[in-house]
C-alpha cells in the first residue's frame, strides 16, 4: 500500500507527459508497415485524427495554463472565466469524441462552435469596427484547421459558411451596432471581399497540402510494397538456387567418387562413361552458375558485350553439341532413343549477326535448356533464323548502330507446356517464375530469361514469347540481333571462309 502511494504521484505526471508529447509527436510519426498495410481511406482518417488530437490538446493546454490563470489573476469578469472553463470542457469533450473514433463529428462541432462564437462576439461589440473585421479574418485560421481535420467536401462547406457569415455579418446584419461606426458601405464591401478571398485562399492551401500528403503517402506505400515483393522473390530465388545447385554438384561428385573408389577395377569403358557423365553435370552446373552470377552482376548495370560478326549457324550447332546427346538426339547414338529429340535447325549457312559470341551462346543455351526442361522427352525442337527486310523498330535508343542494320530473327520452338498469355509479360523479369512452376516439379531459379533478355537488349535486340498457354502446343521464344551488312563484310575480308566452313556443318 505504502509503495503504491509513494509511486502514485510520481507516475501521474509521467503518464501526462507521455500523453501530451504523444499528441504533439503523433502527426509527424508513421511506420512504413502501417502506411503500406492500411487502406487509403483509413490512412486519411488516421491522419485527420492525429491532427485533431494535436490541435485540441494545444487549445486545451493554452486555455488551462495561460488564458485561465491570467484571467483569474487579473480578476476579470466571472463570465469570461466561466467561458474559459466551458471551452476547456468543450475541448476535453472533443478530445474524448476524437479518441472514440468520431473525428469528423468532433472537428465539425469544434469548427462550427468557433464560427458561432466569432459571430456572436462580433455582433455584440459596439463601436469597435477594427476588432469586428479582425474576428472575421480570423475565421481563415479555422478553415486551415478544417482542412487538417475534416474530409475535403466538409472543408469547402466550412469555407462557404465562413464566407456567408463574413458577408452577412459585415454588410447585411440588420441590427449590427457597429455598422454606423465602421464608415461607408463601400469600404466595408471592399474589406468583406478581401477577407472572403483570404478565407478561400486558406481553404485552397489546406486542400493542396492534404492532397500532396495523400499522394506521397500512397507513393511510399507502393514503394514499400514493391520492395517487399522483391524481397520475397529474392528469398525464393535463394531457396531455388540453393536447391538447383545441389543436384548437379551431386551428379558431378558421385561420378567422380565412383571412379576413384573403383580404382583399378574400372574398365576403360567405365572410365569414359563416368567421366562423360561428370562432364555433363559440370556443364549443367556451369550454365546455372553463369545465370545466377549474371543476374547478380546485372543489379549494377547492363552487361558488357563485345559484338563482332558471327556466323549464326556454326554457333547454333556448336551450342547444341554442349547438350546431352541422349536428350537432344544425335544420329550416332541409338541408346535411349525414345528420349532423344529431333532438333531441326533451319538457319541459312551464310547468315551472320553482329553479336558477342559467348553471350549469344549463353542466350541459345538458356532458350534450348528451357525448351527441353518444359517439354516431354522426345518432343521435337525447331530452331529457325532469317534475315528480316525491314529495319528494327522499337529497340533501345542507345543502339544507334544496330538500328541502322537489318535485324536477324532467331526463334526456338518447342511442343512443351507453353506459357499462359496472362503471365507472358512477367516472364522476362528478375526472379519471376510462372505460378504453375513455383509449386510444380520443374526446377528453376527465375533468372534465366531475365539474364537472356538483358543480354539480347545489350546487343541491340528484342526478345518475346508466343504461346497459347496450352500444354503440348508449346511456345516459341524469338529474339532479334543486328545482321552483318556489306560494310562489315568488306572490313573483315576473311569471313567468307568461315561461311563456307559453316555450310558444311549445317548440312
Amino acid at each position, binding site marked *: 500500500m505504502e509503495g503504491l502511494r509513494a509511486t502514485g504521484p510520481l507516475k501521474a505526471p509521467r503518464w501526462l507527459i507521455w500523453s501530451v508529447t504523444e499528441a504533439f509527436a503523433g502527426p509527424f510519426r508513421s511506420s512504413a508497415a502501417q502506411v503500406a498495410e492500411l487502406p487509403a481511406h483509413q490512412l486519411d482518417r488516421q491522419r485527420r485524427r492525429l491532427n485533431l488530437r494535436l490541435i485540441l490538446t494545444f487549445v486545451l493546454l493554452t486555455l488551462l495554463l495561460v488564458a485561465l490563470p491570467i484571467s483569474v489573476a487579473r480578476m476579470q469578469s466571472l463570465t469570461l472565466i466561466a467561458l474559459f472553463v466551458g471551452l476547456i470542457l468543450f475541448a476535453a469533450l472533443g478530445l474524448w469524441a476524437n479518441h472514440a473514433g468520431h473525428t469528423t463529428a468532433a472537428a465539425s462541432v469544434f469548427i462550427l462552435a468557433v464560427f458561432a462564437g466569432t459571430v456572436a462576439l462580433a455582433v455584440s461589440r459596439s463601436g469597435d469596427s477594427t476588432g469586428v473585421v479582425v474576428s472575421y479574418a480570423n475565421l481563415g485560421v479555422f478553415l486551415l484547421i478544417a482542412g487538417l481535420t475534416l474530409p475535403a467536401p466538409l472543408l469547402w462547406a466550412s469555407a462557404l459558411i465562413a464566407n456567408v457569415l463574413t458577408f452577412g455579418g459585415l454588410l447585411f446584419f440588420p441590427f449590427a451596432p457597429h455598422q454606423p461606426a465602421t464608415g461607408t458601405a463601400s469600404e466595408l464591401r471592399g474589406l468583406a471581399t478581401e477577407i472572403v478571398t483570404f478565407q478561400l485562399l486558406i481553404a485552397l492551401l489546406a486542400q493542396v497540402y492534404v492532397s500532396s500528403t495523400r499522394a506521397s503517402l500512397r507513393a511510399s506505400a507502393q514503394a514499400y510494397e514493391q520492395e517487399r515483393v522483391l524481397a520475397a522473390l529474392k528469398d525464393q530465388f535463394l*531457396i531455388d538456387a*540453393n*536447391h*538447383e545447385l*545441389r*543436384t*548437379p*554438384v*551431386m*551428379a558431378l*561428385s*558421385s*561420378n567422380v*567418387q*565412383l571412379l576413384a*573408389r*573403383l580404382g583399378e*577395377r574400372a574398365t576403360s569403358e567405365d572410365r569414359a562413361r*563416368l567421366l562423360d*557423365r561428370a562432364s*555433363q*553435370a559440370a556443364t*549443367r552446373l556451369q550454365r546455372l552458375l553463369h545465370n545466377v552470377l549474371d543476374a547478380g552482376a546485372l543489379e549494377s548495370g547492363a552487361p558488357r558485350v563485345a559484338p563482332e560478326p558471327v556466323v549464326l549457324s556454326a554457333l547454333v550447332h556448336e551450342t547444341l553439341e554442349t547438350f*546431352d546427346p541422349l536428350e537432344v538426339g544425335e544420329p550416332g547414338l541409338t541408346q535411349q532413343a525414345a528420349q532423344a529429340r529431333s532438333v531441326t535447325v533451319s538457319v541459312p549457312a551464310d547468315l551472320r549477326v553482329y553479336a558477342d559470341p559467348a553471350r549469344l551462346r549463353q542466350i541459345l543455351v538458356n532458350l534450348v535448356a528451357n525448351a527441353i526442361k518444359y517439354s516431354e522427352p522426345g518432343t521435337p525442337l525447331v530452331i529457325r533464323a532469317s534475315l528480316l527486310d525491314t529495319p528494327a523498330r522499337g529497340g533501345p535508343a542507345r543502339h544507334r548502330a544496330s538500328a541502322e542494320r537489318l535485324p536477324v530473327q532467331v526463334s526456338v520452338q518447342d511442343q512443351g507446356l507453353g506459357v499462359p498469355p496472362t503471365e507472358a509479360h512477367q516472364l522476362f523479369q528478375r526472379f519471376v517464375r510462372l505460378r504453375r512452376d513455383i509449386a*510444380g*516439379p520443374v*526446377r528453376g531459379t527465375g533468372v534465366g530469361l531475365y539474364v537472356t533478355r538483358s543480354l539480347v537488349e545489350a546487343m541491340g535486340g528484342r526478345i518475346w514469347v508466343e504461346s497459347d498457354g496450352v500444354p503440348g502446343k508449346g511456345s516459341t521464344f524469338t529474339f532479334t540481333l543486328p545482321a552483318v551488312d556489306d560494310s562489315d563484310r568488306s572490313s573483315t575480308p576473311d569471313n567468307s571462309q568461315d561461311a563456307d566452313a559453316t555450310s558444311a556443318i549445317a548440312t
Partner: protein
Amino acid sequence: MTSPPSIHHVLLVDDDPTLTAPLQEALELLAGYAVTVAADGAAGLEALSARRPDCVVVDIRMPGVDGYQFIRAVRGDPETTEVPLVVLSALAQEAQTLAGFLSGADAYLYKPIDLDELLAAIKRAIELTATERQQRLTDLTAE
C-alpha cells in the same frame, strides 16, 4: 569389405537420370546391392508392390506423386510399412526435413552427399529394427 549374407535389394526413386545412373552403379559396384530405379513416385510404388526391397532411397521433389506422398503411402500400407526409407533430397530447409521425418523417413540426407555417407545411411536403415523406428517417431512427435 565383408560381403552381406544375402544380396540386399535397394529401390532408387528419383526423376533425375543424371543422378540415378551413377548412384545405381555405386550401390551395385561398391556395396553389392541389387538396384531397381523408378523415375517418379508412382513408378516407385509400382516397383515396390512388384518386389519388396530391403531399402528405398527416395527423392522429394518429383512430378506426380512426390517424396512425401510416396513415404506416407509406403508407411500406410501394412505390406510395406516396415520397409527402411532413406530420403535423398536437395530440399534442405528445416521444415522440409522435419516433414520428411514426420512422413516416416528413417533418414533424411541432403544432396550433395558423399557416396560413403549414403552407403552408411542405407546400411543403418536396413539394420534399424521396427521397435527402434517406432521409438524414433514417438520421440519426434513428442518434440
